[in-house]
């Protein structure tokens, strides 16, 4: 690893100031992604600002919403009683990600900020517009089995790797941010972005803006939910396709539903049209199939990942069947 300067901060304000003052500094939280990327030479910061001592670890109920501090650990959130009662889908998605050792280090904010696992991004010898704008996308005509089928651009077909974020986008979470211009909030759907012409930007944060926490509104999805992750091995692997499904039922009728997909886009992929199709309909496999067809509109494969065009709708149907007890 290339050496770097190191500093610790104890307040969000100091964290923001330290980053704004240093053009090539990075915040360090759990480090499970950043330290790895530094070892690979993908990111070479001159300075690391250690934010692990900021008081942002709290998990609490706040005005009926669940508030989770940005530095709460993945494992602590997944096993927290309040989270399990209020937002069991989030707990399930968190436990599907990484390994327990990594979950014991990784933070909620860091999970949102993790970079893609695209092998072209991860190798500084390869072209990658995300790592180095203007060098091209190696995956476009290369080995793209893990890559996106929705929302791609010619500049980038990488996917966002998080499981947690798929649940959070389905659950209408809000991201709490503090920065040089003060505090702001942003809906989870608008936090991550599609590559467009600027794949180097994973999200809509401005430089110096720090995630302080997330909020999740209460909902009626505590009984019927599932996170289904399809991958090359049963555990400890990134998703080929994953689906977060949350349903509220009245008898057999779908009152409300939330659907999101992972492993298919540059951002957590919310399926609003498929949700709208299902609302008011009965929870039947035939309806789930039709919803999956709606969800797949506009999907495009790039060769090695064409299998996702079949795997994705099937995963959606299975997740809905499990969530509604029809499996």
């Amino acid at each position: 690893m290339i050496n770097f300067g190191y500093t610790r901060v104890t307040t969000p304000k100091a964290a923001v100031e330290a980053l704004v003052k240093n053009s090539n500094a990075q915040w360090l939280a759990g480090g499970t992604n950043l330290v790895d990327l530094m070892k690979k030479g993908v990111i070479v910061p001159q300075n690391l600002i250690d934010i692990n001592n900021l008081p942002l670890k709290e998990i609490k109920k706040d005005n009926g919403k669940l508030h989770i501090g940005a530095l709460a650990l993945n494992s602590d959130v997944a096993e927290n009683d309040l989270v399990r009662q209020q937002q069991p889908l989030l707990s399930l998605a968190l436990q599907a990600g990484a390994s327990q050792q990594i979950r014991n280090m990784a933070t909620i904010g860091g999970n949102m900020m993790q970079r893609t696992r695209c092998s072209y991004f991860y190798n500084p010898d390869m072209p990658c517009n995300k790592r180095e704008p203007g060098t091209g996308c190696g995956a476009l005509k290369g080995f793209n089995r893990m890559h996106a089928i929705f929302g791609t651009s010619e500049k980038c077909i990488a996917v966002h790797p998080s499981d947690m974020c798929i649940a959070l986008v389905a659950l209408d979470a809000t991201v709490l941010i503090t920065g040089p211009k003060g505090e702001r909030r942003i809906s989870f759907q608008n936090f991550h972005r599609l590559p467009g012409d600027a794949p180097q930007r994973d999200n809509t944060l401005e430089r110096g803006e720090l995630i302080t926490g997330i909020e999740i509104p209460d909902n009626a999805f505590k009984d019927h939910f599932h996170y289904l992750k399809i991958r090359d091995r049963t555990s400890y692997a990134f998703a080929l396709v994953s689906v977060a499904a949350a349903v509220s039922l009245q008898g057999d009728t779908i009152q409300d539903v939330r659907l999101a997909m992972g492993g298919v886009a540059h951002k957590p992929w919310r399926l609003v049209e498929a949700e709208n199709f299902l609302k008011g309909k009965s929870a039947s496999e035939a309806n789930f199939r039709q919803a999956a067809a709606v969800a797949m509109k506009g999907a495009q494969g790039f060769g090695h990942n064409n299998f996702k065009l079949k795997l994705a709708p099937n995963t959606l149907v299975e997740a809905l069947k499990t969530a509604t007890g029809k499996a």
Partner: protein
Amino acid sequence: MARKKSPNHQQEGQQPEEGRRNFLKQSTLLTALAVTPPSLLKAAELRWDEKAASYFEKVPLALEINGKAQQLSVEPRVTLLDLLREHLAQTGTKKGCDHGQCGACTVHVDGKRVLSCLSLAVTLEGKKVTTIEGLSTGDQLHPMQEAFIKHDGFQCGYCTPGQIMSGVGCIREGHANSEEEIREYMSGNICRCGAYPNIVKAIAEVKKGGQKV
């Protein structure tokens, strides 16, 4: 081939050296550091919070390893794994992939299992680290070590320290209630020899035995 810096964090026209200097200017402590040999610095007196270490500056670090208080001085880039193996000659903790993909370097920090290859040592000020060397008491093996021997839970042995540390964590967390759950919660530890069935048996037996782990 030259390694390239991430584009989002380069300021045009600013040389790396200049960037470092600006960073250092923020710290009043550094003038003192520049004239003080590291050996004379005591982390406890320094209060490193909101202070900066320069590019090749060693950072004072006080932590406990296997019950022993350590006063160290380390470069920021040193991982806990390299600190243990290269600086303290505690080679029980193994370097497998060095990228957080195999679990061979699993240790406990404040009682929780973590990957030492992705933990920067400087972030562990005041923490308690337990490695495979600290698991037994004197000549008395830890129950998990005994179970691994009994059930032949290893072949080449390279992943074993990480497996054992992880297995102890697995039981402490309450995630060893069935073979299926053990497999899921041990998935962060890869065994190239495929000793998994016996590793699962060993952990299940220790769990069933109910001894304190």
